[in-house]
Every structure is written in structure tokens, then in C-alpha cells.
């Protein structure tokens, strides 16, 4: 009797993960609709700020929030979900099954990719409808968004898996991901533009992936002259790719060294 195929099981896991995610109202509100709600609020407040070339505050915020949305559906979502699953018996039950670990992670990949794409579509739709962000102007822009999505989701998912091991129980799961996420949104030029931040804060933000992901999305979605407002005065897409790739590598090492199926509290 042959064992079920690992890829097929990964697809099964993916569909179960998606059902669980979208049925759990708290996770949908927390990691999925929250970035969209914030974009609606902040975008409406700052839409009157018009910079050169008629680019509005709402359009800039939409581009930056595309990065926030990806981080939310990968880092925050995976990190808190795994901490909860380690605590409530999900991982223990799955580990006891004749399931290759790769199928479990394939399921998580399906979840973050589908949820991330849906999130991105929601945010871009808000930008287009509410803030007149032009979307279909350039195939290069879509290509840039595609590789940003792949690198961003990969890096942030791996970091989320690693962060989940820091949570000692399901109760601290939200804090372990929401606190760094919220802080980074402030110091990475998403909520507040770089120019308004103290120098040391902007420098600190530049260490982490959100700043680069947001810069990349602004490069993809905004007219080229807006690059002048970036810290370097350029889009620096090569640098964006390098930093995100480095975080992917670092995140993978952290995952491989820290991932546990069991909670330390259940001995």
C-alpha cells in the first residue's frame, strides 16, 4: 500500500488552512481587513496632501500599505497562528499523523500566498477606487510587484515562523508579532514619511524588510519623479532585492534552528 503523495497532501493542507483562516473571524479582522481599514482612514485624512505631479497622499499610502498588507498576512498571520497551534494541540496532533513535514509547510505556503494576493488585491482596489491610483499603466510595474510579492512573502513568512517560537503560549502570540509589526510600520516610512522621522529611527527602520518592501511598491506604483522623496533620492530596486533576499536567507536559518512542534510549557 503506497503512502499518499506529499504534494497532494500539501494541497489538502492548503485548502484546510484557507478554510480555517477565513472562517476564524478574529484572524480575518486582525490580519486581513485591519490594513485595509487603516489605509481607508489614513488615506482619506492625508489625501489632500498633493505633491509634485499631482500624486496624492492617498496614492502614496496605498503603495506603502501594499507592503504592510503582505507583512500582515505573512509575518503576523503565520507567527500568531503557529504560536496558537503549538499551544492548542494542532501541531501535536499533526505531528502524530503519517504526514511528511513538507506537506504541512506547503499548506502554510498556500495560505500565505492566497491570503497575501487577496490582501494585495483589496488594498490596490481601495487605492484605485478611493484615491484614483492608476494601476494598469505599465507591465514593468506588475513585474516589479510580482517579485516583491515573492521575496516579501518568503522573507516575512520565514520570520513569522521563527517569531512564533518566542511566544510561550497562545495568549502571547498576538503580542509577539503585532508589536514588532506596528513599531516597524512607524519607523519604516509606511504610516509616516521618512523625512518626518528622526535620523536614527529611519536608520533603524532601514535594517528591516518592511522599509524596503514599501519602497519597492512605491517604485512599482508611483511615477518616477516621486523617487526624489526616497531617502537615497532613487528607488534603489537592486538594493530592495538584495536586502529582501538576505532576510529570506536569514529567516530560513532562524526557522531551521528554532522551529519546534511542541510547546515548551507542555514539556
Amino acid at each position, binding site marked *: *500500500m*503506497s*503512502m*499518499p503523495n506529499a504534494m*497532494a*497532501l500539501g494541497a*489538502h493542507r492548503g485548502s*484546510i488552512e484557507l*478554510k*480555517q483562516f477565513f*472562517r*476564524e473571524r478574529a484572524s480575518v479582522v486582525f490580519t486581513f481587513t485591519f490594513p485595509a481599514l487603516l489605509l481607508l482612514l489614513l488615506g482619506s485624512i492625508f489625501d489632500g496632501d498633493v505633491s509634485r505631479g499631482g500624486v496624492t497622499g492617498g496614492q502614496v499610502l496605498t503603495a506603502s500599505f501594499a507592503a504592510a498588507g503582505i507583512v500582515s498576512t505573512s509575518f503576523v498571520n503565520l507567527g500568531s497562528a503557529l504560536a496558537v*497551534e503549538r499551544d*492548542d*494541540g*494542532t501541531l*501535536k*496532533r499533526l*505531528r*502524530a*499523523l*503519517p*504526514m*511528511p513535514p513538507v506537506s504541512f509547510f506547503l499548506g502554510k505556503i498556500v495560505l500565505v500566498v492566497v491570503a497575501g494576493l487577496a490582501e494585495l488585491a483589496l488594498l490596490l482596489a481601495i487605492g484605485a477606487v478611493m484615491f484614483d491610483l492608476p494601476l494598469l499603466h505599465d507591465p514593468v510595474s506588475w513585474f516589479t510587484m510580482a517579485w516583491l510579492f515573492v521575496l516579501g512573502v518568503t522573507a516575512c513568512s520565514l520570520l513569522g515562523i521563527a517569531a512564533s517560537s518566542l511566544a510561550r503560549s497562545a495568549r502571547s502570540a498576538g503580542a509577539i508579532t503585532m508589536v514588532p509589526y506596528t513599531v516597524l510600520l512607524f519607523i519604516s516610512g509606511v504610516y509616516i514619511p521618512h523625512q518626518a522621522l528622526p535620523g536614527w529611527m529611519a536608520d533603524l527602520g532601514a535594517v528591516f524588510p518592511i522599509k524596503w518592501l514599501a519602497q519597492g511598491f512605491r517604485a512599482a506604483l508611483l511615477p518616477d519623479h516621486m523617487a526624489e522623496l526616497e531617502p537615497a533620492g532613487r528607488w534603489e530596486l537592486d538594493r530592495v532585492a538584495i536586502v529582501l533576499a538576505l532576510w529570506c536567507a536569514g529567516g530560513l536559518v532562524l526557522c531551521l534552528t528554532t522551529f519546534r512542534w511542541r510547546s515548551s510549557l507542555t*514539556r
Partner: protein
Amino acid sequence: MNDTAIRVRGLRKSYRDTVAVADLDLDVHRGETLAVLGPNGAGKSTTVEILSAQRPRDGGAVTVLGTDPADADRRFRSRVGIVSQNASDLLELTVGEVVRHFAAYYPSPRDPDKVIAEVGLTDQSNRKIRQLSGGQRRRVDVALGVVGNPELLFLDEPTTGFDPEARRQFWDLIRSLAADGTTTLLTTHYLDEAEALADRIAVIAAGRIRAAGTVADLVDDREATVSWRDGRRTTTAPTALVAELGDAYQGEIPDLAVTRRSLEDAYLRLIGQEVNA
């Protein structure tokens, strides 16, 4: 293939300073239901988790279905079913979705709908686990434990927290599963549960098996206690004593009772809490 499903010799496991399992020996024969009976903290769950390849051991020789669980691969896991304690996961999925999903992991699963019917949840099949009662959720756990058509089933304190009626119903379910030849290792701290379900009972305390055998083996009922208004005597010949007393009282013996040692007496003696009678 021999007739031993589980063979354990000198099993040891400690958590930091606490010894959970100390030099434990155990045999489970194919097709039997064995209850590991013991107080909380005796090492029951640790033993089950080691045997079912969910936890590494510190020492000892263990063979489960011809394999060392420390080397458990997918094939081994597909032959074993586990019903653990305290799971509170899968809440957003329906009974049918969960059982069908779990069936997909196994090379030759049972029909999910039949399994759902067996555990008595056909009417709840489209309800989310979140909406089920504690007893119904435990039935889902059992369904997930048996849907892979296991040769060996581990049930770790399956009825803890049940009301008496739910326990009775649950026992019927376990009996029907055991009746088709599945080897079952059950842990419990309820004497009546062990007595109702198991072919043999192994009494565990402080990480060691104190005795193992049928209820009759454990109780050792050669002696009975005869008590009446004016006295009390333990003897291997209670009938003769009662006849003697009948003659002495010339008719009814006041407050006569003849009792044999119960499983409870034997159990308390084995776990080192002798009753002061």
C-alpha cells in the same frame, strides 16, 4: 509477526528533576484491550506518548508493532491511531471536513462517513467542531484516531470530564471498536472504566507497573470477609462459617454480610494507599 503488539522493558523518562517513568515493563498482546490504570501523575500519558512515537525516551527497550517508535516513519504512524488529551484545535471546521481530511493522510483509510456514523455524529456531520459539546468533540477525536484503520489504538484518558451517561455511551463506542480486533491501549484513572473495557489491567504508580492481569488476577478473591452484628472474620471458607453462625443464632444471623475484596481494594493496595479497614 508474533502475537505481541507492544513490548516494553526498563522504560525510563525524566523531565528535568522529575522522574515520570522509572523502569517500566509492559506487554500488550495483539487484539486485546489493555487498560493502564493509575492516579494522576503516575506516568500514563508519558508512556503512551513514548509508545506512540510522540516523545523520545531516556532509556529502555521498546518495540511497537515490530518497530522501535524512536525510528517511527510514516508507515509506522499510518498503522497507529492516537486519541490524546486536551486538544482544542480544528474548531472552525465541520465534523465531515475534519474526518475526510484526516482520512487523506492514510494509505488505506476507513470510509469517513461510516466512521462518523460509528461515533454517532452523523446528525452533526455538517456542524463546526466549535458548536459541539465536550463529549461530542471527544467522539471526533476518536473518529480521527480510527479513520486511518489502525492496527493499534492509543486512548489517553478518553472520558475525563464526562458525565456518567456520556461515559456509558462512550464505553459502548470503544467496545464496538475493540470488538473488530483492533489492539487498544487505554489509560484511565477510573477503576470502573478499566473494569468495563479492558481484557487486562496494568496498574501503574510512580512510573512503574505494579501489577498486570485480569480483574480476577488482581483482586485475588480466595478470601472473603463475613461480618455480622457481633463479629467479623476473613476466611477462605465463608460458607462453612455462615452455616456455623446459623446454628449458633438458631435462624437469622443479625446484620449478615459476606464481601469479597473489590478491585478498588486491590488497586489502592497496589498504588500504596492501603485502606484502613
